[in-house]
């Protein structure tokens, strides 16, 4: 067991590599030599082009996949040790891209109860947790609804509630907004930010660059490697590198860059429309 846990660290990856066996092309290294630590309460966004290994990495953080080489610890528990798996999965809950393929039960409340039921929580306590979780994601009015009649954003919030009801330390979301409309995306992002304020560590994978600006830290994956890591301002400063990887910066950041090139003085940290407006009106 890893011993040198500092009190605030929650996830640590060291030299993590992972290899898929593929039927046609043989083996494929989806992750190569990745090392990082994530502290309790942080909001991390992971960016990367299609096929860069984001989902593969996410599945390592709650022991759904085990490293081919290197190690991953969650709350000081080594994921390679099978005895730790259930505790790790309770600590690090995961929400997936397609809301349809992660809702198990035929009503909202039954689905949210699924996790706590698996953990063997007593009935009365499950009830309390389900109500609390649905309240937190703003779906308390939909307890008896059938999931297939909800909108995408609502389904995704139900999925989040299902994880919250397990009382995790850490929430891992793999492109939760990819299939949603703007309102659904806002609903989900606001929910995630609220949970982060309550002290839950959030690791969010996304293709929407605008969603990265609220992060404490952004990690960029490219071809299975950790290509960049830093605050949103630091990462988005490197717009050309991002574009070379198939990514982009939010339009405002690109605009701010263009304005600087034309000689306008702007603070280096401009990431949002509001920030640019207040800079320009100074």
């Amino acid at each position, binding site marked *: 067991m890893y011993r040198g846990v500092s009190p605030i660290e929650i996830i640590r990856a060291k030299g993590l590599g992972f290899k898929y066996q593929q039927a046609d092309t043989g083996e494929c290294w989806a992750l190569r030599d990745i090392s990082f630590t994530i502290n309790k309460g942080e909001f991390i966004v992971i960016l990367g082009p299609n096929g860069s290994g984001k989902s593969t990495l996410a599945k390592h953080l709650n022991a759904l996949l085990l490293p081919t080489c290197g190690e991953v610890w969650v709350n000081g528990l080594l994921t390679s040790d099978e005895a730790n798996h*259930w505790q790790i999965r*309770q600590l690090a*809950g*995961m929400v*997936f891209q397609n809301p349809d393929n992660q809702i*198990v039960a*035929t009503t909202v409340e039954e689905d949210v109860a699924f996790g706590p039921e698996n953990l*063997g*929580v007593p009935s009365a306590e499950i009830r309390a947790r389900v109500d609390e979780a649905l309240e937190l994601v703003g779906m308390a009015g939909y307890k*008896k609804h059938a999931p297939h009649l909800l909108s995408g954003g609502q389904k995704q919030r139900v999925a989040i509630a299902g994880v919250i009801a397990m009382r995790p330390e850490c929430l891992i979301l793999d492109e939760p907004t990819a299939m949603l409309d703007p309102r659904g995306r806002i609903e989900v992002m606001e929910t995630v930010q609220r949970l982060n304020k309550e002290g839950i560590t959030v690791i969010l994978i996304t293709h929407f660059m605008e969603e990265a600006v609220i992060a404490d830290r952004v990690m960029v994956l490219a071809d299975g490697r950790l290509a960049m890591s830093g605050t949103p301002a630091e990462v988005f400063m490197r717009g050309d590198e991002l574009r070379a990887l198939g990514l982009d910066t939010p339009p405002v950041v690109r605009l701010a860059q263009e304005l600087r090139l034309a000689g306008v003085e702007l603070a280096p940290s401009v990431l949002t429309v509001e920030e640019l407006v207040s800079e320009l009106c100074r």
Partner: protein
Amino acid sequence: MNMFRSITIGQYLPGDSLLHRLDPRAKFIALLLFIVAIFLVNTYWGYLILAVIVTTFLFTSGIPLSYFFRGLRPVYYIMLFTLLIHIFFTKGGSVLLRLGPATIDSYGIYLGFYMVLRIIFLVVSTSLLTLTTSPIALTDALEYFMKPLSYLGVPAHEIAMMMTIALRFIPTLMEESEKIMKAQMARGADFESGNIINRAKNLVPLLVPLFVSSFRRADELAIAMEARCYRGGMGRTRLRELQATPRDFLAVAVAGLIIAVIAGTGL
């Protein structure tokens, strides 16, 4: 094609009637007893009593009648078929009509109508159960009744889980097949005309994508369940443990009483 989305499993309609509130296990047992009663009865008085009971429940259940009867449509053909079979092939009693070598006998008509009545009672009472009981409650009840079997190695929990997942995904898959069908129709596919062999061949562009996506769904769902600590029925608790109230025992007792009366008085 647009009906796919409308299929609510077993046609369950949420509500708050007495039937809706009864424990699913009590409803199951009462229905079984009621079915026994249907087969025991053989007088008009007996049927009248059953009819009064069924219609009372139907009217108090809060289910729109049009909705109720629409759901019964497929059964009409079965009833008609049963009636005709009995009229033409059951012999006995007096001959009412002679058509060449064939005859229509009074006993045939009598029995035909009896059988149709029984079918009506069976279908109406069973759909009262499925219309007022949510699929989960039904699965819970089934799991409960199957529990003794798990000592014989029958995977009671797994069967119930499978049913729940099937119920959850039927509407999703229906929607999906509708979508794929339309996508192929937009490419000129024809699912409606041609002989049987051609039609079967034309289904390939529908079935292959459906299989591919179902396997992917199954895979993703399995991972999502594992991520939420699912590991079979061992050590699992439930959000809602089934809880029988005096009302439920009363319901079963009343159903039992009806049988006893029918059997005892020979109605």
